[in-house]
């Protein structure tokens, strides 16, 4: 029996979806630094998010049920995560490795937005992450404004997902990715005051960012 299965069976009640928490974002934060874990947890809680913090990519995969234990039939229902925020530089599995693993998964998990956090402003690193499907790349230290902006973006995305599904059904031939503009794109790109690198000032990041909404 894999550790992941034990972890899921021992999940306390509060980690399961609650009807009242329909509008509450559940964020899974991954960081090997205890100081950073404390800070990100507080940043998220104060922004009214449900938070689960883990110390490594391995633990994150375990929590999500992606630790290779395919035999488990408990499946994805018990854990619903709306956003994953992971540090880039971690021993063993880096944030980039974790990102790749998640994006290789089945549709449910691949759709979870993953944000990379790093104290290093390295363009090649940023490009790599965005190309692999990261939603955003935040420069540490992460601020309240970053979390708020992310939250708004994700919340709008959740609403738009529902609308988009309706749109696709009714206009199946007219909908093509290039013709569909998404309001979230412009708001994300225009937030120059944050530590997000997705700004018009960095052309390489713009060209590699594909709309996944």
């Amino acid at each position, binding site marked *: 029996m894999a550790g992941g299965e034990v972890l899921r069976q021992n999940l306390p009640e509060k980690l399961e979806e609650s009807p009242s928490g329909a509008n509450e974002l559940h964020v899974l934060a991954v960081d090997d*630094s*205890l*100081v*950073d874990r*404390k*800070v990100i947890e*507080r*940043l998220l809680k*104060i922004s009214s998010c449900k938070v689960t913090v883990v110390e490594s990519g391995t633990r994150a995969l375990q929590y999500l049920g992606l630790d290779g234990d395919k035999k488990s039939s408990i499946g994805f229902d018990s854990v619903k995560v709306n956003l994953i925020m992971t540090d880039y*530089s971690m*021993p063993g599995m880096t944030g980039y490795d974790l990102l790749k693993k998640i994006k290789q998964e089945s549709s449910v998990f691949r759709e979870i937005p993953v944000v990379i956090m790093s*104290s290093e402003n390295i363009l090649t690193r940023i490009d790599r992450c965005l190309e692999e499907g990261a939603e955003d790349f935040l420069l*540490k*230290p992460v*601020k*309240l404004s970053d979390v708020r902006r992310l939250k708004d973006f994700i919340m709008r995305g959740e609403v738009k997902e529902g609308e988009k599904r309706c749109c696709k059904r009714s206009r199946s031939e007219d909908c093509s990715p290039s013709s569909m503009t998404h309001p979230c794109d412009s708001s994300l790109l225009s937030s120059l005051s944050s530590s997000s690198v997705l700004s018009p000032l960095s052309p390489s990041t713009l060209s590699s960012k594909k709309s996944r909404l």
Partner: protein
Amino acid sequence: MLGLGADLLWADMNRLLAFLFHQGVLDEQFLQLQQLQDETSPNFVSEVVNIYFHESEKLLRNLRGLLMEKEFSDYKKMGIHLNQLMGSSSSIGAKRVTNVCLAFRAATDHSNRSGCLRALEMLEHEYCYLKNKLHELFQIEQQRALAAGVRYPVQNN
């Protein structure tokens, strides 16, 4: 009516903070931490800072241990400790400590042992200074909280 003591201590606290900002010891990330402190988490800043102290002292000991080795050559390992220290220092707004870590890292990148030793000494000094000042800050804050709790003068009969 709040005790005069609380007001004076509040002024002391702000004076010390302003001084630390002016000296570049702390930056706006420290203010960000203070914003995260409220009634639901009233000791958030001191909790995080105490974790930071505990971790940093371990890392500093590791760094000194490595550099003191007769046959020292593991700059990569030193770089790992340094990156951890730099990351957490920047997370709490310890600007001067972070900057010294940067200089230290440059020395490791060039495998410059004497440069590393100098940087480590500076780092230990900056860290000590930061720790003392933050302890002072927390002490004033504690006293202020106590003083603010006194609404009326205590009667001694």
